[in-house]
């Protein structure tokens, strides 16, 4: 129904635009399009798109941006029920082909961003991702297989993100494990992927720097299905917990299920690759005691986001309509619309160019969103370097928890927010 209401508002706005015909007065001066490119086939992607739509509907209801009405069009980068960089590229090309599009929210997956940035940067097309965490997209690090300057091909930076990067996730868990959980010995397991090895390295480095000891092991998905020997080695090492670097599609949570089979009950720690329903499914029978990080603030824990969340819940009442990145998408959309508004002023109240929007976005400082106040550095990274820590728990009402829940066997086991680390304040 709310979507219908949004549609009515949009339709009315379009009528008004036609009626006024661009004449002077309080009417709309025209339309500007904002797109989103998200894996809408997934629960997380759909919930993120809801955040974009909500922000734009709200802005239009309040009069639009500098007299312009914003039209939203959501693109889906799913192919065969999974995100696809090819589909993402196609979507960006569609947006670039329509000069009313002045910016986009997305993508959701770092691999998609890697494919899209080279195309969008040539057109100075502003992209703001609400969910990408791969540091290589914005930082020139030696471990990266690709580098930001190569993706941008000499064009000014057009890519921004409102979440922080993986290189803060590992250290956040190190600090939590060493200082809060008081662990001094941890077994570290990686899935031999770029992401898994990278995040495990950042955990290990920080944990050792704090004074802890680690034992490192790796596996490959297509070669290992019996993890008990590796787990046994960790146990003999005296590990008080296991940190895993990897993602659920590499079976990273299968060792969790097998820990029960060898009667070993220490906590299981990891990055955002395990804060997923599939991880809970893989750990079937041993879901409790999984700690995971997420590379952003949990909006449900930020007091300033409360009113926006309750307004959102009223507009999108479904149990899965709100997700971990919905408010990030909301902030990203508002930051983009603020930049568009400034660009319109720069262009004397006329429709700005894509470069004007990009330049204004790059100048964004002190943008007050509901999750926090954002600045963006020259690479497009946010100053909000917040990492949240979640723990799996039995939830009375899975639709109201802060994190995701199991989707097959343990539907009441959910990730519940515990604490957060703000690296802008730590370092």
């Amino acid at each position: 129904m709310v979507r219908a209401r949004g549609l009515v508002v949009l339709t009315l706005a379009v009528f008004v635009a036609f009626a006024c015909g661009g004449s002077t007065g309080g009417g709309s001066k025209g339309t500007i399009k904002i797109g989103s490119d998200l894996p809408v086939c997934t629960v997380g992607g759909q919930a993120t798109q809801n955040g974009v739509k909500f922000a734009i509907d709200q802005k239009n209801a309040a009069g639009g941006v500098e007299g312009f009405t914003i039209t939203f069009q959501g693109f889906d980068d799913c192919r065969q029920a999974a995100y696809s960089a090819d589909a993402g590229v196609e979507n960006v090309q569609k947006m670039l082909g329509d000069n009313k599009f002045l910016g986009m929210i997305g993508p959701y997956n770092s691999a998609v961003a890697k494919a899209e940035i080279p195309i969008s940067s040539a057109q100075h097309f502003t992209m703001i991702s609400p969910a990408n965490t791969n540091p290589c997209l914005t930082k020139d690090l030696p471990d990266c297989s690709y580098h930001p300057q190569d993706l941008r091909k000499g064009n000014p930076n057009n890519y921004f993100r409102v979440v922080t990067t993986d290189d803060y996730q590992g250290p956040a868990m190190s600090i939590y494990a060493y200082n809060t959980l008081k662990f001094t010995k941890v077994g570290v397991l990686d899935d031999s992927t770029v992401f898994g090895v990278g995040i495990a390295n950042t955990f290990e480095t920080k944990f050792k720097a704090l004074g802890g000891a680690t034992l490192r092991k790796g596996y490959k998905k297509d070669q290992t299905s019996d993890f008990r020997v590796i787990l046994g080695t960790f146990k003999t090492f005296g590990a008080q917990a296991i940190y895993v670097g990897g993602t659920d599609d590499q079976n990273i949570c299968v060792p969790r299920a097998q820990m029960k089979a060898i009667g070993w009950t220490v906590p299981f720690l990891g990055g955002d690759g395990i804060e997923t329903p599939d991880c809970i499914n893989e750990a079937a029978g041993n879901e409790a005691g999984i700690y995971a990080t997420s590379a952003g603030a949990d909006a449900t824990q930020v007091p300033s986001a409360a009113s926006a969340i309750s307004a959102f819940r009223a507009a999108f009442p479904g149990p899965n309509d709100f997700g971990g990145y919905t408010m990030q998408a909301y902030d990203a959309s508002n930051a983009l619309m603020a930049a568009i508004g400034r660009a319109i002023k720069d262009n004397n109240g006329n429709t700005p160019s894509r470069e004007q929007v990009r330049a204004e976005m790059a100048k964004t400082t002190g943008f007050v969103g509901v999750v926090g106040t954002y600045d963006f550095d020259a690479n497009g990274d946010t100053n909000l370097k917040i990492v949240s820590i979640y723990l799996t728990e039995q939830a009375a009402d899975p639709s109201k928890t802060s994190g995701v829940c199991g989707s097959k066997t343990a539907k009441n086991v959910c990730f519940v927010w515990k604490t957060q680390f703000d690296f802008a304040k730590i370092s």
Partner: protein
Amino acid sequence: MRTARLGGLGVADLGFYILCAIAVVLLAIQAISSPADFLQILVFGLADGAIYALIALGYTMVYGIIELINFAHGDVFTLGAYVATTLIGFFAVSEDAFTTLNLVVLLLVFPAVMLIMGGINVTIERIAYRPLRNAPRLAPLITAIGMSFVLEGFMFLWHGPATVHVPNLLPHGPGFEGYLGFDCAVNSNNCVFIGFKDVFVLVAAAILVTLLALFINRSKLGKAMRATAQDRDASQLMGININRTIAATFFIGALLAGAGGMIWGLYFNTVSYNLGFRTGLIAFTSAVFGGIGNIPGAALGGMVIGLVAAFSDGYIGSKWTQVVIFGILIGVLVFRPTGLLGMRVPEK
């Protein structure tokens, strides 16, 4: 059945014995330096080995009788676990405690899965191998690989790419697990864990292998299988129904693979659609290691490869385990093509 020993006690055999001796010495050093670790890996390795043995038997029986490497066999094993999960799903079993219902379900589902998988494997033989019985040997090998993809594709469509949970039916938890160890009471890190499941896997595999051995050696059909393996044409002249005998071989091989799949599922509680590819190759290596076509050899080979994999996981690193196992396959083929106990294949 005649045992063909290709190589005599030559340089190659000597190399084989030297390699084995080195491996044993290295393991002994580890065993002395950290006995708890060693024993723990031994327990896991034996349990894994028992499952590999069950699969390897299917490879070796089929190879022994029609000289076909049935690459789809590993996927029959995985399908067994999938079928078991589905059948168990019809009952309200408890994963928290071992109830009477669990026992009843186990006793019902085990034979059901074995029979279903037997039926499927006989169908596979009828569709993909029998029409090619007199074709060049490469043809059924290719259809076998094709069948493997068909089965994997089917399981992918059935349950998708994510891992599938198999209910934890067997007794587990406190009361059903024990610890061995030298100073276990003092240092819990030195405890060797043995669960009911580990014992269950070994006992179940031992029972199945014993039944198979009795069947092959004592029953009339077993005798027919041995005769067919030795000389197909002569057996046919003696009035043995070759098609029926070969179908029976596939049926029995799949009974064991289905049981293996279900045991794997009950043991690890997770399976994925492509599990059979790797597990099948390892079981095939076990069959070659024991001497292809040789039934006790396959059982022994499975146990040895299970142990090798576990020790490699523990002492070398799991990323190297595949290298070690297939290195052994190459080593056996080069230095001792007849395997540990000698291969038994049809006479030409």
